[in-house]
């Protein structure tokens, strides 16, 4: 009576079809299209475009602006990633520690995660107002005697970078805590109990049990943070004048790409070449992370 003649092993394909289609349309096609565009001088404001080979890439390496954007991006990402992973690791250890038994871990975790729910654009605008010349931070610091006179915080390279790094850290460390804690609670408790019986110190347990078993999670955090960091855009864009001021010190890869895209003619060909180089750079680094953190037998 099986008139439709469906074979069971087709079901799997059927269910992954939506994803595959979605991936082809929204994942693979844009990548290929970007790659194609990067070899052309296409602009949004003209109807014609021609193939110009590697000229877009030559120009990027020649004008030093791209290298500056790459340097900025790495500086901002590393300055935010080190404290982020450090503090998240510390908090996760405390929260999961069998010795400390901290109460209401769920509430703390939720509190730390809260900033991540806010819109980056809103946060950036908020900080922009707070740190403006006639803004509250200047008023507070001058009246408290910390500053002699009001200063242009967002015209100071270190302060502006500091604010970008702080916002990135503050928004994302809660997320990292949650992932790290998930990884740590998955480690069988009897390993720690055995270690405690053997008289291991807290640091020894961390070094010999937690870290090695956490490696896959660490790789995940590393790679996702790297990918996100290399695409950092909204905070520096909204916090500054959209060009990474002061003096392009917070101009990230994506801000440069956006500047090319939104320049008077809309050079999407040149913008795509930035995207392609960032893609290559991020892929190579991610592969590097996998290689260096691989299981060594």
């Amino acid at each position, binding site marked *: *009576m*099986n*008139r*439709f003649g*469906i074979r069971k092993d087709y079901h799997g394909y*059927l*269910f992954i*079809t*939506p994803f595959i*289609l*979605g991936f082809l*349309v*929204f994942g693979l096609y844009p990548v290929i299209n970007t790659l194609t565009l990067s070899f052309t001088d296409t602009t*949004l*404001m*003209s*109807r014609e475009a021609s193939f110009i080979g590697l000229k877009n890439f030559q*120009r990027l390496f020649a*004008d*030093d*602006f*791209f290298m500056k954007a790459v340097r900025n991006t790495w500086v901002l990402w590393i300055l935010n990633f080190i404290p982020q992973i450090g503090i998240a690791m510390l908090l996760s250890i405390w929260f999961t520690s069998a010795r400390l038994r901290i109460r209401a871990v769920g509430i703390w975790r939720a509190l730390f995660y809260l900033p991540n729910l806010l819109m980056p*654009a809103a946060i950036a605008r908020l900080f922009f*107002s707070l740190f*403006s*010349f*006639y*803004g509250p931070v*200047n*008023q507070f*610091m*001058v*009246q408290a005697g910390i*500053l002699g*006179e*009001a200063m*242009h915080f967002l*015209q*100071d*390279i270190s302060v502006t970078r500091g604010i970008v790094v702080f916002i990135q850290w503050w928004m994302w460390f809660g997320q990292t805590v949650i992932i790290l804690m998930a990884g740590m609670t998955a480690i069988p408790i009897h390993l720690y109990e055995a270690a405690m019986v053997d008289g291991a110190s807290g640091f020894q347990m961390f070094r010999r049990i937690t870290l090695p078993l956490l490696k896959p999670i660490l790789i995940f955090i590393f790679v996702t943070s790297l990918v996100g960091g290399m695409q950092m855009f909204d905070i520096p*864009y*909204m916090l500054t*004048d*959209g*060009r990474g*001021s*002061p*003096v*392009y010190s917070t101009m990230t890869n994506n801000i*440069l790409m*956006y*500047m*090319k895209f*939104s*320049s*008077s*003619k*809309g*050079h999407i060909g*040149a913008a795509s070449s930035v995207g392609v180089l960032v893609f290559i750079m991020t892929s190579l680094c991610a592969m590097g992370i996998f290689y260096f953190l691989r299981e060594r037998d």
Partner: protein
Amino acid sequence: MRKSVLYLLSLLVVASMILAACGGATEAPAEPAEPAAPAEPAEPAEPAPTEKTVLNVWSFTNEIRTMAIAYEAKNPNVDVVYTMIPMTDGEYQTKLKSSLGTSDIPDVIALEAAFVKEWVEADFLADLNDLLPLTEELQTFPAVVQVGSHEGVTKGYSYQATPGAFFYRRSIATECFGTDDPSEVQALVADLDKFVETAATIQECSGGDYFMVGTSAAMFNPFLANRAQPWIVDDTLIIDPMVEAYIDFAKVMRDGDYESQASQWSEGWFAGMSDTLVDAEGTPKRIFSYFLPTWGLPYVLMPNSGETGGDWAMIDGPLAYQWGGTWVGAMADSPNIDVAKDFIAFVALDEENLTNWATGVYTNEYLAAIDPEVPEDQAQAPGDFVSSQVVVEKITASFDGSELYEWLGGQNNYEAFGKAAPKVNGALLTGSDDAIQRALETVRDAYLNGEITEAEMWQQWLDSVRSEFPELLIPDPPATD
């Protein structure tokens, strides 16, 4: 039997997902960056017995919405769908460009002076030469038409002409110079040297509590308007002596503490207009003057001036200039090109509309009578300076004794702007101005603040221009001392 039901169900799920994905695909390309403000909900016309023509209009302010409502009253068969996208950091420009070639493209677009040339020089706007006879009838100021034209084709018209002026506080003038008379104050700021001297006088007379200007950034436009050449000539970037002069001047203003340092359009800058500026120590500060053009008076200065009405006066200032202005163009691919043209003719080249626009006929009640859903703050206060000399001459006298007249302590702004408007030069604008000027502004503030040297500033600026315009020939940076 159960199997076939499952099969059908799973097919349905897949189909719905695919359809959902397709639905997204048509919308996705138009959203490269979320616009900072939500676009107006584009309500499709209600299924009325007679189908209305939908005209999609995009702009970066709510100004033209007022005229759109007035237009609907005259053309009941047209439904103008108005979308406002702000342009503070270039959101509007980006949204416009990225919608090219998609189904989201509007019929009519508003173009600001900073980027109107990009569009007039490109080939996406419709040729509107057939509206030119109307400009002769209305004697539209030549610079307005010149800016909207490229190689003999006019693609954009404006309802405004935008000569600039210098607005100052009468009370501060009386306190520091012993007179608030416009002609005597004009003599004190007649050129840039006198301007700086006067800035020092004001500082001295107030013990440093009064500033000459809110920010020297506001003077970028006056300097740019007095260049001999545009930014780009024969694919070469031109650093006109006025550009260098501006940077030197801005540095003098900053180092002398003659400016409040509140950046343009920031809360502090606006606070200066209503005498509510307070510095970080809690000391009240006052700002003597603002450089603003025609539209700056009714849209910026007056609404933010708080209790200071009547204490203002207007003169030419040290440099003649123009600033801003909104042009309106139609997309060549628009399916409703005739309606779009008619709309543009109404907005920019209709004597009755321009008169209503400038004399405050379009009140909120007037608009609400046409469209009950109009927001409460949608209205056009009198005083915007229109592009037609015919209209200007007819209505100038009507401003004697008006609210604006009183606000200016007994001056007719229309008369003053009417004298300045024919002198405006439209030839200095090019399609690349916006990007070049924004690039200089980014590094200028860091230089004024002492973060980088002048030589570094020029170098950084040229590097960034080179990065954005790879084909452009870039000269050596100006010599610095």
